[in-house]
């Protein structure tokens, strides 16, 4: 029951739970107590449901991602056919006489020769690395479309990783600084003001 409906001169009623809830629901001069009041009064079951509602989409996302990774990894693990392997390696080798084409894409005779050479070496049981090295021993490392993971060429792989790590570190530092600015704790004066407002 509100104060305006009480007859004049009547003794003030003790505060009821409904009144407290209604008071908490009305806009308050300070935001912090208004925000915490419903959570404090909500039953534990409702609080759990609310938490689930926040975390459920993230949990679904994680499950979908992990599932996709597992399925993808499972598909790649099968034995690769000789033709597919030759095509895959040839796609990482530049056609010696073309511009901007891999040995897998080109119809040039030199590209055919590269594919045949790769096929012969695959049949001999050589690894991808051995085949690539054999071609680089003839033409030089620039015959490979994908830079090698050693020497100066390794910088091509390492630099983006370093850049991402530095960017993440920078973002983390920036977020920490911003959150320390906004996370101002209420002073004793603020608490007194809030208490006074709540007692009215």
């Amino acid at each position, binding site marked *: 029951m509100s104060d305006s409906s009480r007859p004049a001169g009547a003794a003030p009623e003790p505060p009821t739970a409904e009144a407290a809830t209604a008071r908490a629901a009305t806009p308050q001069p300070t935001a912090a107590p208004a925000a915490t009041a419903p959570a404090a009064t909500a039953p534990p079951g409702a609080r759990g449901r609310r938490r689930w509602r926040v975390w459920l989409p993230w949990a679904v996302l994680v499950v979908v991602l992990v599932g996709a990774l597992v399925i993808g990894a499972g598909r790649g693990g099968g034995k690769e056919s000789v033709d597919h392997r030759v095509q895959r390696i040839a796609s990482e080798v530049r056609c*010696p*006489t073309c511009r901007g084409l891999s040995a897998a894409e080109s119809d*040039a*005779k*030199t590209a*055919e*020769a*590269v594919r*045949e*050479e790769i096929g012969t070496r695959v049949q001999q049981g050589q690894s991808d690395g051995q085949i690539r090295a054999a071609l*680089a*021993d*003839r*033409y*030089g490392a620039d*015959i490979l479309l994908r830079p090698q993971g050693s020497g100066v060429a390794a910088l091509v792989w390492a630099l983006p990783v370093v850049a991402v790590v530095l960017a993440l570190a920078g973002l983390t530092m920036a977020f920490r600084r911003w959150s320390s600015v906004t996370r101002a704790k209420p002073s004793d004066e603020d608490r007194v003001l809030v208490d006074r407002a709540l007692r009215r």
Partner: protein
Amino acid sequence: MVLIAVLATRPSSEAVQARSPLLGKSAPDVVATDMDGHQVTLKSLRGRFLLVNFFASWCVPCQHEHPQLAAFNQHHQAAGDASVLGVVFEDDAASVRRFVAEQGVNWPMVQDPKGKIALDFGVRGPPESFLIDPNGVVLVKFIGEVKATQLDALVRQAEQARA
């Protein structure tokens, strides 16, 4: 006018010595047939300097280069210290035979129908040449038109180094 003057006074194009992973290593073995069907191997040509020249009849720089190769071959044929081996690069036998008949080629010319020899030497396009020493080691890789004087100087230099 300035452009014409610059072009007219430019030195004629000369082969550049190129980097190759083969330099200082044994040349890949070549087993091929010449235009008459005879087998030619690189091993059988050891004991003198050898210029392996990748060529095609459709290649204009190769046509310009031909007199220089002829001069080099003729100069060293008598001394027996150097010779030339031509390797046909992406060309048909009929065109090559016509070129040989018209231009006169005094050195063996082998066919490479599947491009295996070009692949073994890391050739990207004609004309490319490799100077190989009497022990079968690759000394120099040339890209472009070689000059007889350029080759003579290198052979002399290599002979002095060997002596």
